[in-house]
């Protein structure tokens, strides 16, 4: 079968692109080599939390922020989607997740960010949440006490660390922040204890008696808390939303924070997207690493894993950044003097032009891991031309579109924009493909008598 669109990469961007193509009735396949990074993700979707290079001012209205951002940074991926495009993409994406069995929430307040609590107790501006709308609204009601509660023995959530982290936030300076652990029998745990469990297993181990104990412990010990933060180990799919149940039973405002990976809310997003893609008739080709491409006259004819040819009319590259091997760095670093030579970055399949193809090690990364100005390698990626197309040595590839974290020109970590950039660029790429396929069909139809 000849695919109308072949998507390379099965993560957030790849599946999003696949779903939009399949929804429009295209014959589409997603090729993926391993698993996506979604199992490391918080499961909240950020759109824009900070302007580039300004970590001091959080952005309340992300779409207004995008208008300002694209005016100043025409190389930013959002500039190719535009403010309205990003807004439309996010709305559409939320609908697709719901179709795939996962409910998510934006803030009650029109087009405003809300806050999510990270595993270290930091607050980050976010757009979509799984735990409910405005668990932490932009301007929170005055708080007296915040409690980070953990299940005894569970190692992938550290309430004391998170409590200290939140305490450092200026708005919480005068708030009492403390931690609590709850002993549970883990009735469905088959006799195992929480210290050998990751979040998905803990979720499976919790039974109704455990929920009774969580609820009664919270009522007894922290009834005065303005906010309770639990590790994200409760089921939040459409079938069971345990968090809502606990809120109802305790009358407390409870929110969950992503644990160390594997992160249950991130896995829920992956699951919902895969479910939706399959239901729409898309095909997923696993464990197949695309290595080469056959290009002629500015068009990609086929791609290959080294043994099989995969042909298609259109291609979307969503192979991710360095960790996903969408980008390679310095194949032949001189090991004895690794930091004296310039670094070479390559996109391995098409050899696409990049934002920082060669760079000095000092520009590539900062000595401080959590440096406020971010790292060069994060901004490195595929460069798009003025028409939003990728190029090889300055020549555009007309039937190739690029989406997700492989794109250069932004720092999704510093900006809090990773989810939004992946989703909206994939939405845009798939939209272009759908439009071209439909236009080709009309032309073909017009030729017939």
């Amino acid at each position, binding site marked *: 079968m000849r695919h109308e669109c072949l998507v390379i990469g099965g993560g957030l961007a790849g599946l999003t692109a696949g779903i939009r193509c399949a929804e429009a009735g295209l014959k589409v396949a997603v*090729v993926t080599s391993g698993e996506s990074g979604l199992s490391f993700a918080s499961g909240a979707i950020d759109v824009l939390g900070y302007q580039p290079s300004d970590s001091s001012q959080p952005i309340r209205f992300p779409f207004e922020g995008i208008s300002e951002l694209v005016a100043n940074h025409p190389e930013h991926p959002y500039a190719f989607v535009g403010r309205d495009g990003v807004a439309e993409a996010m709305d559409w994406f939320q609908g697709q997740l719901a179709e795939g069995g996962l409910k998510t929430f934006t803030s009650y307040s029109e087009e405003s960010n809300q806050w999510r609590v990270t595993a270290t107790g930091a607050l980050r501006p976010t757009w979509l949440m799984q735990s409910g709308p405005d668990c932490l609204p932009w301007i929170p009601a005055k708080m007296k006490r915040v409690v980070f509660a953990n299940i005894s023995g569970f190692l992938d959530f550290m309430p004391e660390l998170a409590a200290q982290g939140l305490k450092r936030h200026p708005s919480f300076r005068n708030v009492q922040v403390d931690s609590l652990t709850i002993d549970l029998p883990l009735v469905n745990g088959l006799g195992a204890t929480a210290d050998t469990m990751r979040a998905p297993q803990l979720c499976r181990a919790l039974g109704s008696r455990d929920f009774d104990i969580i609820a009664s412990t919270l009522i007894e010990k922290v009834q005065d808390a303005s906010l309770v933060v639990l590790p994200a180990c409760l089921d939040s799919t459409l079938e069971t939303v345990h968090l809502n149940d606990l809120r109802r039973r305790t009358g407390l405002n409870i929110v969950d924070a992503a644990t160390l990976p594997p992160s249950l809310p991130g896995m829920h997003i992956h699951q919902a997207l895969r479910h939706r893609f*399959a239901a729409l008739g898309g095909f997923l080709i696993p*464990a197949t690493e695309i290595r080469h491409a056959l290009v002629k006259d500015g068009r990609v004819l086929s791609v290959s894993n080294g043994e099989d040819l995969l042909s298609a009319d259109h291609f979307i590259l969503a192979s991710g950044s360095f960790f996903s091997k969408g980008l390679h760095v310095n194949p032949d670093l001189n090991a004895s003097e690794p930091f004296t030579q310039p670094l070479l970055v390559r996109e391995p399949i098409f050899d696409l032009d990049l934002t920082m193809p060669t760079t000095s090690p000092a520009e590539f990364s900062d000595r401080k891991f959590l440096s406020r100005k971010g790292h060069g390698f994060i901004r490195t990626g595929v460069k798009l031309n003025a028409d939003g197309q990728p190029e090889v040595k300055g020549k555009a590839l007309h039937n190739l579109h690029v989406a997700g974290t492989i794109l250069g020109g932004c720092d999704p970590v510093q900006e809090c924009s990773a989810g939004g950039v992946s989703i909206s660029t994939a939405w845009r790429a798939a939209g272009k493909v759908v439009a071209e396929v439909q236009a080709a069909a009309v032309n073909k139809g017009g030729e017939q008598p």
Partner: protein
Amino acid sequence: MSLFAILKSSGTQSGRLTDRSFDQCLKCTACSSQCPVAAVRPDYPGPKQCGPDGERLRLKSPDFLDEALKYCTGCKRCEVACPSNVRISDIIAAARTTYGDQKFKVREFMLSHTDLMGTLTRGSAPLVNKMTGLKPVKLLLDKGLGVDQRRQFPPYAKTSFRKQFETVAGSQQQYARQISYFHGCSVNYNMPELGMDLVRVLNAMNIGVRLLKKEKCCGVPLVANGFPDKARKNGTLNIASFEQAMTEGSEGILSTSSSCALMLKDEYPHVLGLDNSKVQSNISFITRFLAHEFEAGNKPKMKPVNLKVAYHSPCHLIKAGGVLHTLNVLWEIPGLELQQLNSNCCGIAGTYGFKKENYETAQAIGSPLFKQIEESGADYVVTDCETCKMQVEMSTSKKVLHPLELLRMALVD
């Protein structure tokens, strides 16, 4: 080989299986997020802990062997997920044979010596089939051996595939192109019709089929049940047969079982330490060969089959990168309405699901798949693996076809 010799050879001397790839582990947990067992068993710590993390400890002292290792099914989804090419599943399998209980177990012997069991039933298949379906026999197997009584045994065929092949062997000479078929235990003793379908399909593509002079069980169940040395012995014989077939003008070696194919091609060298380099590139799972033939223009004449089918991809086919090939073949069948099921493990994992202590786990792993199958509205389920077929047919209302059976149905006679 005497039972005593088999006993002596099993288990212990597995130093060759030690694998240092765990040094590459970044502790990212991508493996644990994909483990079908960890998803349903909170008492299984998952591939990261049992594989690379545990191996570090076990190298210090075998006392660190975690009893939970026995819950690993060997599906290899962890290895597909790993961004650093750690051979997690192989590390766990090796740890079980190296540090685990070396006592001989009748059940493990019986479940894993598939070719021996097949030979023993020769001539008495109808009786054996009847016996294994009887309640008292099932109860006896359950209580005495720990083979779960809820499990249905695959029926043995009256006439083995090798015997049935004799009726068509003569006509194979007329084809200029010749290819060898590793039928495996399941086709020989349980599903000879699938082997005959292969002959019909390849003949329709002007390719003659040969059998190997000698073949033994590929070794998958032997490795899974603690008989690596027996597996190595079988492998050595099979590789010699493959090399002989190639020198006698065969184009390659085909298997219709996705797990056999993975073993013969990829795991002989890296799990069993056997050198198959002379023939490795010639070994193919059937759909890989067919997909490449179709691509080159050699397609049999086909008529529309007008069926709605749901495709389930077996874990070992995923690991081998073969889903692409099966889809490529299925996409070429005219009239076929094809739906791909979510990539979930069916739970049986070869002999794993037959064991009493694993029955519940196997069914829990498979339940999302079974649900999706029942809701699919498909006429048939299609899959490449014989034990996935057993599991799906036992646990759902659907009959399961091999891709080759669909192709044979599409052939224009």
